[in-house]
């Protein structure tokens, strides 16, 4: 494609006039969603129950704390562990890359629910063996088991994000940096990573959001997080607003994160704006 052509097609197509079918469908769909949203708001106002709030809000807050600490600890540990895995995935050593491949293959290919179950109830049935190696104190605690399973899971995803981002930087930059006398680590730190982070930021944000939502399964191993407390509240009150409130709390968390990621992106791409 020549440069002159590119300039010509740069304009967006003019907006259609009148009411073509696509626009009618679009407006009516948006209308349906707005009605749905208004319905929920109206229901919450109608069902507003100070007693429900006074009784269960503390449990929700405590559950929120559990969710946040579980996810943040797991994300950080997963990020640390994803470094050697990503290194293994990019390695030319057959054994290393094979091991890393199998790790990622298993943890991305099985549900987090299964992994959590396996860590808690599966590993838990090997108590004598764990006691001889002195690891039982760790696997005895449900919260540690949850952190363990979640970290291993997110490490697999984060390793792939990291690998993809590093590989998105053209090979020529490594060669150019080498010709200027920078060694591999310097190249990684000063040339490749600053560009890779821009590519990786959005997927990292997505992974964090997915982890927050995925953590809602952790009540099956007796860690009562936000969702677990909502379930208990529902079981006691049989009031559907127990679940509506928990959905709103998750929504708010995700919304804050989304804006946070956008803010970071604006900051680190400041040199690309004209």
């Amino acid at each position, binding site marked *: 494609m020549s440069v002159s052509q590119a300039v010509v097609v740069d304009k967006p197509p003019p907006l259609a006039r009148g009411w073509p079918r696509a626009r009618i469908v679009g407006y009516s769909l948006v209308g349906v969603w707005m009605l749905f949203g208004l319905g929920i708001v109206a229901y919450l106002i109608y069902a507003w129950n100070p007693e429900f709030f006074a009784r269960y809000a503390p449990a929700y807050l405590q559950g929120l704390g559990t969710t946040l600490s579980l996810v943040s600890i797991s994300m950080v540990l997963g990020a640390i562990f994803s470094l050697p895995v990503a290194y293994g995935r990019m390695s030319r050593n057959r054994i290393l890359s094979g091991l890393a491949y199998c790790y990622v293959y298993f943890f991305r290919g099985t549900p987090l629910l299964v992994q959590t179950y396996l860590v808690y109830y599966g590993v*838990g*049935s090997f108590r004598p063996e764990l006691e001889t190696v002195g690891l039982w104190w760790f696997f005895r605690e449900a919260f540690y088991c949850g952190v363990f399973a979640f970290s291993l899971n997110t490490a697999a995803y984060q390793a792939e994000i990291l690998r993809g981002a590093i590989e998105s930087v053209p090979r020529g930059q490594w060669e150019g940096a080498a010709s200027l006398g920078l060694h591999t680590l310097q190249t990684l730190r000063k040339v490749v990573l600053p560009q890779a982070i821009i590519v990786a930021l959005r997927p990292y944000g997505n992974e964090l959001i997915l982890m927050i939502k995925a953590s809602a399964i952790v009540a099956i191993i*007796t860690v*009562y997080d936000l969702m677990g407390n909502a379930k208990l509240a529902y*079981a006691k009150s049989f009031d559907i607003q127990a679940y509506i409130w928990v959905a709103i709390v998750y929504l708010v968390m995700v919304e804050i994160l989304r804006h946070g990621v956008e803010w970071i992106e604006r900051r680190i791409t400041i040199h690309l704006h004209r």
Partner: protein
Amino acid sequence: MRIALRIALAASAALLTLGVAQAQEKTLRIGTEGAYPPFNNLTSDGQLVGFDIDIAKALCDEMKVKCTFVAQDWDGIIPALQAGKFDAIVASMSITPERQEKVDFSHKYYNTPSAIAVPKDSPLKGVTKEDLAGKNIGVATTTTHYNYASKTYTDSTIKGYPSSPEEQADLANGRLDAIEDDIVVLQQWLDSPDGACCKILGQPSPQPVEIFGPGAGIAVRKGETDLVNKLNDAIDAIRKNGKYKEINDKYFKFDVYGAES
């Protein structure tokens, strides 16, 4: 337009089939849990078996209706009844005031006490609040046992499990110091190879009727008095004609019905 027409056709067809289905409604759909042996359990080939199931079948024979069974997680069993996924719950559900606000119950069809199990080498001596202070107690959530434990053992850590097998696994591997559950359910597990680790320590006492209720009943949607009356008559009938005793003796060495009400 064509799409709108199709939607309208599909909707009217759905309404028609719904009407037909309602006209043919002679089968009673029964919801149960399937993770509470010996009362209700799913076998490895997907069959529902147990005391609850046999009682339900006997009641259906007595009422001369055809019955089908649906297995449903305990947590969602009352909402599923209200949503019309089935018409009655026969799942060892204790009749409690909290539940009576949401569903109607038949008379009890059995009543067995709650008990505490511990590992065989446990240093625990009794089942009072003081005896269990500072210990980890496992209970299946949203059960009467859970309500009792969280009200009574306030100095202990109460851990909630989705169902009985999980809490039993954690008592066996030592994460828990004690579990509270129905004595019959505990005994069944202790008699199996998996339960060889543990023993029954005792029964909490008193077991207040406000928490445990008068026993296990059959839950139906609010206002279905007709069905409740039929179920009550059927329960009385199988108690009288010996069918109840036959089923009882198949599973238990004693009469689980408890005191005559």
